């Protein structure tokens, strides 16, 4: 297969700055050299490729849009999005790792943590020396995290956490967890606050989620919090906005996902297009058949549409005008788009399409998680519906 060169049917390259292109090409080359040769096996073995953690840190992808002062790269949001796109071209599990580390751990520490939290954790998280996870979802509170039953009770000298979190990316590998817990009556969404919890604190335990059929090269875990005693300083002082604050983190992560999904779709399209030109059936390349050309044209159209969405979303984020609903639209549209592109690519590949030597089915399976996490497709429909009608349908 020809080297991956991206897909740029509408010449978006001319809208990116030289620096943005250089950043994208650097991450693209990294993924080609370091991720592609090992990802199939990592997937089959159901292991996150941990050897990449320090390398990605050296490259500078963790929290890349946060300030240099804390050891981060200080990039704009379009560059950050392009990084997510290229990482997910490799695998959604790699992108998820980086999304969680940056948007769900470093971002809340930066936005809501104390200066001590920032100086203690951000530089280590930026290099990958420390790994973070984000615990919001619970077994019975997925789309409705406001109902959470994990509690934080104020004690004479700090906090006592009890409860459990589910589906936590990096949950077993993490050195530090951002745990969201209810500090008031259950159901009071204003009482939800965020805690910086070192995972070696007594009472904190985690367990790998067994039996996944998606995102296999990623650590997804369950976390149990049993009488976890924390000092007063563990609470993020600015996390006083209740549920709104974890949702602000999700907006950051969803932004990255909308770019990442485009990357996964581009990987599948690239594979399908190459295959269609090489695979001979009935004595001719299948790419010369109208059915496959329609399939490819549909894929290209969806990808191009997705690219235009993320490009514009990124520029709005950099201008400071982006709204969470605009992020919902892009996450919803692009995760759905990529899931469909991956499935069509897999089908075009015939029997080879079910093999791990090819990438499309891995992406297809991964994207089912991407479709579901960070607000399911349906939940984003409801967010947009509420925006349009002013009526909540949750």
């Amino acid at each position: 297969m020809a080297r991956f060169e991206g897909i740029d049917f509408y010449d978006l390259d001319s809208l990116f700055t030289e620096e943005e292109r250089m950043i994208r090409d650097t991450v693209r080359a990294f993924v080609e050299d370091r991720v592609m040769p090992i990802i199939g096996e990592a997937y089959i073995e159901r292991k996150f490729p941990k050897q990449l953690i320090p390398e990605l840190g050296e490259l500078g992808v963790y929290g890349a849009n946060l300030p240099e002062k804390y050891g981060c790269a200080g990039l704009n949001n379009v560059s950050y999005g392009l990084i997510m796109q290229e990482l997910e071209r490799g695998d959604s599990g790699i992108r998820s790792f980086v999304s969680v580390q940056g948007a769900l751990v470093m971002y809340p520490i930066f936005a809501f943590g104390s200066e001590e939290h920032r100086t203690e954790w951000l530089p280590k998280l930026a290099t990958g020396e420390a790994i973070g996870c984000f615990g919001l979802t619970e077994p019975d509170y997925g789309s409705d995290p406001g109902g959470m039953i994990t509690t934080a009770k104020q004690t004479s000298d700090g906090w006592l956490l009890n409860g459990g979190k589910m589906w936590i990316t990096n949950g077993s590998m993490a050195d530090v967890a951002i745990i969201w817990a209810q500090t008031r009556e259950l159901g009071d969404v204003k009482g939800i606050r965020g805690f910086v919890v070192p995972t070696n604190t007594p009472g904190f335990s985690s367990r790998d989620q067994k039996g996944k059929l998606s995102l296999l090269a990623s650590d997804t875990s369950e976390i149990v919090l049993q009488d976890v005693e924390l000092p007063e300083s563990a609470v993020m002082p600015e996390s006083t906005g209740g549920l709104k604050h974890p949702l602000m983190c999700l907006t950051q992560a969803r932004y990255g996902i909308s770019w990442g999904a485009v990357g996964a779709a581009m990987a599948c399209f690239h594979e399908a297009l190459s295959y269609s030109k090489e695979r001979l059936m009935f004595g001719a390349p299948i790419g010369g058949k109208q059915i496959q050309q329609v399939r490819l044209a549909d894929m290209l159209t969806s990808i191009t549409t997705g690219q235009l969405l993320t490009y514009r979303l990124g520029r709005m984020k950099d201008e400071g005008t982006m709204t969470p609903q605009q992020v919902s639209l892009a996450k919803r549209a692009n995760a759905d788009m990529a899931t469909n592109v991956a499935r069509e690519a897999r089908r075009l590949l015939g029997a080879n399409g079910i093999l791990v030597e090819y990438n499309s089915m891995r992406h297809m399976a991964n994207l089912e998680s991407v479709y579901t996490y960070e607000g399911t497709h349906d939940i984003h429909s409801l967010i947009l519906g509420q925006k349009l009608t002013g009526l909540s349908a949750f």
Partner: protein
Amino acid sequence: MNVTVCVKRVPDTETRVRIDGTGIETTGVKFIVSPYDEFAVEAALRTKEAAGDGAVSLLSLGDASTAESLRAGLAMGADSALLLTADVGLDGLATAKALANELQGSDDALILFGVKAADDDQQQVGPMVATLLNRPCVTGVASFEVQGDMAVCHREVEGGVEVIEVDLPAVLTITKGEYEPRYASLKGIMAAKRKPLEEKEATSVPERLRVDRLSEPPARAAGRIVGEGPDAVPELLRLLREEANAL
């Protein structure tokens, strides 16, 4: 330890080249730093790091777009860059003279080149610059180490390694050896913006080599099937002997 690296902007090695009269069609072509020059940049950065001080300067002769390639080198870690703007043709000596005019005053201990440019493959410019500057030159260096006033260079030769000691200042041309180029870190890319990148017109050196015409190689003729199975062997042998003169 100060090192200058001369780099050239070339079409990506995966480009499907299309010919346009006397040159190649450049629209839609991605340009990169010639891969051998990237080895040289990596070698320079390691030399500086090993010495613990000094600066790596980049020098290129090219059109205005070459600035982008120089910034890529700055992002890898080079300290400064100079672009000599000119229309670069295929005349290696003209290129070498323009570079040498600039390097005349340089007291950098090492001037590095890639062993060849990935586009025209001439392997001339490095040694020519060395000659013009009256400096010793070692070509095709796979690895080297600076020891005092000397560089100990390793060249890969058939079945072994040739070790050449050369007095500094010297010119080396670097080949693919142990200098796998590093990725520019994202911070490096940001920092590159703040590093000095100077541009000035190259001293004009007339080219003495003229390209009259470039043309595609003729399409390969279709193969011929002389028969099938063992029966075909005698005929195949006859053709190989009489027509192809291969036996």
